[in-house]
């Protein structure tokens, strides 16, 4: 494999008992790409992400991240659908814990800097239940960024948020991603979110999850306002293409 491949997936399958949930899938993600996995509910996209994170093991085929078998906590930061913050720690304490696990020096400045990167200020001393759901998810992203892994994996992180908060977080994540250039895999069932965030969109078929469409998104990655981006004719065309790919495969 080429050294520039952040993720390499070959003939990957995953079964729960007798049921084939995922695959076979072949997929190569080069460094710096923002890949969005999109598909209907239950198509195995979350399972695929957990396989890449090392939380699930392949039934067949292989997954390599950075050239090695993925191990949880080594090489990939993870953001879940729920923030999963530790309520016995303050907001800052949650970030500190991540820094400590990563073997980095823990300073108040570093914590503030990480929170600022996701657009949060003066919340380090707050309790996790004293900030809003959107802010909690921002903290979860900052926590995943703190570890400075080459990979960032996000499993429908904005699905539980209201529409306004979701759009704001999408814009901010797009900026953070452009600034850090980190290879990311983002799972969603929203077509709009997929086209807005991804530099590449992969549509999965319903169970078993296979690749139905693999699309490069040629939209500008930075220096463009969200409304302007959504207003581009290319954006609408891509949305339609991805939408069709999903609807054609849904047979319920």
């Amino acid at each position: 494999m080429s050294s520039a491949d952040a993720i390499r997936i070959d003939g990957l399958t995953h079964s729960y008992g007798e049921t084939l949930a995922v695959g076979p899938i072949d997929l190569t993600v080069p460094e710096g790409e923002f890949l969005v996995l999109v598909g209907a509910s239950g198509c195995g996209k979350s399972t695929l992400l957990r396989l890449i994170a090392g939380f699930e093991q392949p039934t067949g085929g292989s997954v390599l991240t950075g050239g090695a078998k993925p191990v949880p906590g080594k090489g990939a930061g993870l953001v879940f659908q729920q923030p999963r913050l530790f309520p016995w720690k303050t907001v800052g304490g949650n970030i500190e814990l991540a820094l400590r696990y990563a073997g980095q020096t823990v300073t108040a400045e570093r914590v503030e800097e990480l929170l600022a990167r996701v657009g949060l200020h003066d919340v380090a001393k707050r309790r996790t239940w004293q900030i809003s759901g959107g802010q909690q998810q921002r903290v979860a992203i900052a926590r995943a960024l703190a570890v400075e892994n080459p990979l960032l994996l996000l499993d429908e992180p904005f699905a539980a948020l209201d529409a306004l908060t979701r759009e704001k977080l999408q814009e901010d994540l797009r900026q953070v991603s452009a600034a850090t250039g980190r290879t990311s895999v983002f799972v969603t069932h929203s077509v709009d979110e997929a086209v807005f965030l991804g530099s590449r969109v992969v549509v999965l078929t319903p169970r078993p999850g296979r690749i139905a469409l693999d699309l490069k998104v040629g939209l500008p990655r930075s220096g463009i306002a969200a409304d302007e981006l959504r207003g581009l004719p290319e954006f609408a065309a891509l949305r339609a293409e991805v939408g069709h790919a999903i609807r054609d495969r849904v047979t319920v």
Partner: protein
Amino acid sequence: MTTTLAPAPPAPPGSAGGTAALAPSGGLRRRLALRLLALVVLYVLWEVTARVMRNPAFIPSPGAVWDQLIRTSTEGYSGHSLLEHLGVSLRRIVIGSAIGIAGGLLIGVLLGTVGWLRVVAEPVVTFIRALPPLAYFSLFIIWFGIDETPKLWLLSIAALPPVAVATAAAVHGAPTGLVEAARALGASRWQATRDVVLPNALPEIFTGIRLAVGVAYSSVVAAETINGVPGIGGMIRDAQRYSQTDVVVLGLFAIGLSGLLIDSLLLSAETKLIPWRGRV
């Protein structure tokens, strides 16, 4: 010991409402008034019953108990003042429950994390929990004599199971989502246990500790039935022998009221130590 509902602490600034969302207990003033009223009613009932019965060996009047409070505090009873009796008993309770809680924590964490150990040891813990403390006290007397040692053993063994059971259940039922989040951040198994599983278990462990101290409290009288002077249980037993019912009642009050005090101390420690209780 009493396990009355806590006087709700004032809500910390910035938090929306108390944690006991399902059981609002009304304003502080109203609750105080209610409690005072209940006390007055109880006192009147007691006074009336004592006067009607006219049998101080059966029900002593509040006045007689009050006189005994003054007498045992100044002249003493069985050679020791009331405070000495209470102090010795409290010391036994504190040492006994401290040992029991420490042991319960250790056993609970082991039971919660090591699968085969849980299978082997859980019935043993349940077995001990089912025994009345007096039943194994005889064994401790045979083993350790009649001095301080068997009493402390009794209280420790009585206090251990509630903490062990609560800890084991909470550790075993740790939320996989949070453990996974810690492991995704690179935590080792031990780090995930220390930073996620144990803090997550703390509210339940604390409930276990309150129960344990309560069990130690209710066992202290049993522990002091043999060679229990000084000690509030020994005092009660001596008074029973001479039918001094007023001293018996005084002893009961001393145990109950100090129990209330200790429980409220534990509760205020809990709200300080575990501000996230009910927030997960």
